[in-house]
């Protein structure tokens, strides 16, 4: 056993020296390097996005409860090396200058905020300053709207319950303030030590107690593990990513782009490994036959080659992990400008996945070829034409397919995209088969009409159909994957970015009263501020689903969906909003008017297990409204337009008092207009969304940079596939050329026919790639990324051209020598 292992190592070193292993080894290194670096980079970006989201909340983790929270949580958190802070949020009427205004008050301790900062200014919508802690005891910071509603200025006093607080700043931004658009009341920040004296918080008051935590991921995770079983029914834990629907949606999309791109690079490396392993095995048939002839048993052969496979796997995987680390470090340095702050470091997980992926790909893609070596007959030494029986096709395909699905799923954590990509690849292979039959038929028709090198080139393709089909398939798949990545980068990302144009609405106006609709509209119009629309908004609560009371559901299941615990924003309209799409059912028509129907947002429907035709009872202003689910709607939360979970048709809930909501874009330089608006309509609330939008844009930039990086790996992996593919046909090509030359073909004739053959291969592969790309793009656009699909006309022209160029470039390095090689030498050694 030990001696055999030594022999295996010796043979491996000899193979290495003779250059046999280079493509296999390099393909493996690239596969591992790409998985590792993409994994590392994705995780760092992911962590950075989480961190950004965390900055939005002011903490990584927040525990909310309606009764006061257990102090033990804080001491336990500190044991886990987490920083902690506490806040109390409640609504109360504030009094100043005989004016009364309901405010949303947040009382904070000295550690608040744990992440990010509070932004304040001296005048509403004026220049901002940054503060890393909240107001001192006896002080209060007021939102601009509260300032104008109470008609107070800085250094004046306001009454909060039984105490007076001095207004020391205007509150511009407080982390977590955009978690929900429902907190309509203007905000006030005060010190937590003043809460008791104010006398506002009494037993039974509606108060949210929060404990905030921040620390390293590992510490947070171990703390969460401790905390989760301790949670009471009224307590909820909010992670860093749950801060904003728009950011969530962007982060999710970013993850999908990245995982899709990295999956494709793994798939491509897999193909390269399969091809080079196959060639490696084929080139060892003679060696194995000889070894068996001089006495090696089948199990010896298997042991030798499995040992080699493991050694190769370990070495290549180790080199790949190191290469991957260096590559992503270099990338982080290069992209320093994109990431305004230092990216958080990644954990060990990407290294493990990268290393293991080397093994999984190597085994999945090369084991069938290596197993075949075991059954090489020793008689091959006498009868060279004897090839080992092929391993059963299902074994080869299922091994390769399952290993790649496993790997892609493991890496991406997204089964839908994994299966979609696999289905696409499978369909692409099927398309190839149909296409190759068509092309062969067409070639047979064309063949008699051609002459010279083109005729010979086509003849070569027709003669060796199986080998060429394989070559067209591998080249086609490489080009297909390159095109998909290119589309993701150029088309999908651009379209995503275009959904958030520079003039996307960055302000929401809420609390518009019915009588204010027209004046507000004309106010905005007169100042050239464009608004998409002004929509009604009514607060209502779901009290029953299909005859089951929500209150009963709460006792049955410990966790009640938050949407059932609070008032929802309901609206009514007859025209579907631009950024909404109907998934099931139909949008309301003229007959729907006055009927108790609802349109429900897809995510909410899924969470509440609602399907078409389900009946819901709403409690709106103490009245019961029964309504039926008429359609399910997809909402683009990143559009920054007013969006609603539940929409009624006209004349169902119109009778209830409603406020109105609108959104518009305002440049930074025009912010002063907001003061004017608030002065004129003091009951309006303006929410500034610039921060969320900047976050989303920053995420988009990061993904764009990351995908460029992935493209580089995919390109290298693609070149490896092409090299492996061209190499596999080198011997038969050399031999053919040598025979042709002995028969009198000139070198230029051979060169031209070789060029013609390669060009035809390029055109066929290019066409195949374009067909596959269009098909997958269609599925990706509609099913995953929610984008409109249109045919990529230019791709149909550039695809085959790119095919020819890349194939010519890669193959010419190897093939250019063929016409010049000595026929005697080739025939002697072949």
């Amino acid at each position, binding site marked *: 056993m030990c*001696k*055999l292992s030594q*022999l295996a190592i*010796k043979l491996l070193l*000899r*193979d290495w*020296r*003779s250059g*046999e292993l280079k493509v296999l080894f390099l393909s493996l290194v690239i596969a591992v390097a790409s998985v590792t670096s993409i994994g590392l980079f994705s995780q760092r970006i992911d962590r950075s996005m989480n961190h950004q989201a965390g900055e939005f909340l002011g903490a990584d983790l927040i525990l909310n409860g309606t009764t006061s929270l257990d102090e033990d949580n804080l001491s336990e958190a500190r044991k886990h090396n987490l920083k902690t802070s506490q806040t109390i949020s409640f609504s109360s009427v504030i009094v100043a200058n005989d004016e009364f205004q309901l405010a949303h008050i947040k009382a904070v301790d000295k550690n608040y905020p744990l992440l990010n900062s509070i932004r304040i200014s001296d005048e509403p919508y004026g220049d901002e300053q940054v503060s890393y802690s909240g107001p001192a005891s006896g002080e209060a910071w007021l939102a601009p709207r509260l300032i104008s509603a109470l008609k107070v200025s800085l250094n004046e006093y306001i009454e909060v319950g039984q105490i007076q607080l001095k207004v020391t700043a205007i509150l511009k931004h407080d982390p977590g303030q955009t978690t929900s658009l429902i907190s309509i009341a203007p905000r006030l920040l005060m010190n937590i030590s003043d809460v008791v004296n104010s006398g506002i918080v009494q037993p039974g008051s509606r108060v949210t107690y929060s404990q905030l935590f921040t620390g390293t991921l590992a510490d947070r995770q171990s703390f969460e593990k401790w905390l989760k079983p301790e949670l009471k029914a009224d307590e909820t834990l909010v992670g860093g990513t749950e801060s904003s629907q728009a950011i969530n949606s962007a982060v999710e999309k970013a993850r999908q782009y990245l995982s899709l791109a990295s999956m494709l690079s793994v798939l491509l490396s897999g193909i390269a490994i399969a091809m080079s392993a196959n060639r490696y095995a084929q080139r060892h048939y*003679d*060696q194995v036959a*000889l*070894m*068996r*002839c*001089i*006495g*090696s*048993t*089948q*199990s*010896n052969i298997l042991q030798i080659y499995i040992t080699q496979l493991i050694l190769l796997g370990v070495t290549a995987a180790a080199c790949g992990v190191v290469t991957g680390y260096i590559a992503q470090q270099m990338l982080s340095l290069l992209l320093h400008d994109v990431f305004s702050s230092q990216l958080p470091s990644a954990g060990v997980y990407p290294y493990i996945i990268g290393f293991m992926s080397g093994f999984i790909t190597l085994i999945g893609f090369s084991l069938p070829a290596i197993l075949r070596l075991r059954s090489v*007959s*020793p*008689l091959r*030494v*006498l*009868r*060279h034409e004897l090839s080992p029986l092929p391993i059963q096709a299902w074994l080869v395909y299922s091994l390769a397919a399952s290993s790649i699905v496993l790997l892609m799923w493991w890496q991406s954590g997204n089964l839908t995209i994994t299966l979609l990509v696999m289905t696409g690849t499978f369909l692409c292979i099927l398309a190839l088969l149909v296409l190759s039959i068509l092309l062969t038929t067409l070639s047979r028709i064309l063949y008699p009409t051609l002459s010279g090198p083109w005729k010979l080139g086509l003849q070569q393709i027709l003669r060796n159909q199986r080998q060429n089909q394989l070559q067209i398939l591998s080249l086609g798949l490489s080009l297909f994957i390159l095109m998909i990545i290119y589309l993701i980068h150029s088309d999908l990302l651009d379209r995503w970015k275009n959904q958030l144009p520079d003039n996307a609405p960055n302000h929401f106006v809420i609390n518009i009263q019915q009588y204010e609709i027209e004046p507000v509209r004309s106010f905005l119009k007169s100042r050239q501020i464009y608004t998409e629309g002004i929509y009604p908004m009514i607060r209502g609560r779901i009290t029953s689903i299909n005859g089951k009371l929500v209150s009963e559901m709460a006792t049955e299941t410990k966790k009640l969906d938050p949407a059932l615990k609070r008032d929802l924003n309901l609206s009514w309209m007859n025209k579907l909003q631009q950024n909404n799409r109907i998934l099931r059912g139909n949008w309301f028509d003229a007959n729907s008017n006055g009927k108790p129907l609802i349109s429900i947002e897809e995510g909410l429907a899924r969470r509440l297990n609602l399907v078409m035709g389900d009946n819901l009872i709403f409690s709106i202003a103490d009245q019961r409204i029964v309504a039926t689910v008429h359609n399910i709607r997809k909402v683009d939360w990143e559009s920054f337009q007013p969006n609603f979970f539940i929409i009624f048709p006209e004349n169902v809930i119109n009778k209830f008092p409603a406020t109105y909501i609108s959104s518009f874009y305002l440049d930074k330089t025009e912010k002063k207009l907001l003061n004017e608006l608030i002065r004129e309509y003091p009951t309006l609330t303006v929410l500034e969304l610039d921060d969320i939008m900047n976050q989303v844009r920053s995420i988009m930039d990061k993904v764009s940079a990351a995908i460029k990086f992935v493209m580089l790996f995919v390109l290298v992996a693609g070149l490896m596939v092409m090299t492996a593919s061209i190499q596999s046909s080198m011997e038969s090509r050399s031999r053919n050329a040598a025979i042709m030359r002995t028969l009198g073909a000139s070198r230029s004739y051979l060169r031209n026919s070789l060029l013609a053959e390669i060009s035809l291969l390029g055109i066929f592969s290019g066409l195949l790639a374009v067909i596959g790309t269009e098909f997958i793009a269609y599925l990706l656009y509609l099913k995953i990324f929610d984008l409109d699909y249109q045919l990529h006309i230019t791709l149909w022209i550039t695809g085959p051209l790119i095919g020819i160029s890349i194939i010519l470039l890669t193959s010419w390095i190897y093939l250019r020598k063929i016409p010049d090689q000595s026929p005697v030498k080739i025939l002697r*050694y072949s």
Partner: protein
Amino acid sequence: MQSSNNILVVRNLVKKVDAVDTASSSVITILNGIQLEIKRSESVSIIGASGSGKSTLLGLLAGLDKPSEGSIIIDDINITELDEDSLANIRARKIGFIFQSFQLLPGMTALENVMLPLELLSENNARQRALYLLDRVGLGERLHHYPKQLSGGEQQRVAIARAFTTQPELLFADEPTGNLDKTTGQSIISLLFELNMEQGTTLIIVTHDDNLASRCERCLLLDSGRLTNVQA
């Protein structure tokens, strides 16, 4: 009693193969009831026209292929009853090969090629033995050359050295001079017989070369699937 003198005994050997080129499933009989006895240290040549089944017979005698009927007994062991692993063991310990196309591994140097059989047997003295034999076949100066850096004659010398490394009792040679010019062929034949004499190996040669056939103690003709003695 008789078998202890014979290293190889063949009884009623039949080899049939399916004809693949015809539409109907017919069977072709290549070897039809071969009877053969070969004594230890004897040298035997097998001649016959192209396609007469010489290489098929060689493959069967060396345990590389399975017969349709009959038995092949090497050193009192009926190898037709053995499984693959036992056959491999017999080949490793008792049999050596020389081929027309040399069958050297292109990625290995002359020395490595010669060491390989002993390495497969996990022998410790592989290097010394290979060095000795390469020196013996006159390639002491070309140890680290790869096959493509050697002439045809030199490659066959390496193959001969490799065949003798395990000191086989039986050496099968398939057209050993088939790829060589006359002069080189002559020197290879001489070398083969010298080593044969030195090591007392039994030599079974399949050849077209009359000169080589005549150097053997016995010459057999394979014709129509049967073996007959030919006067050397």
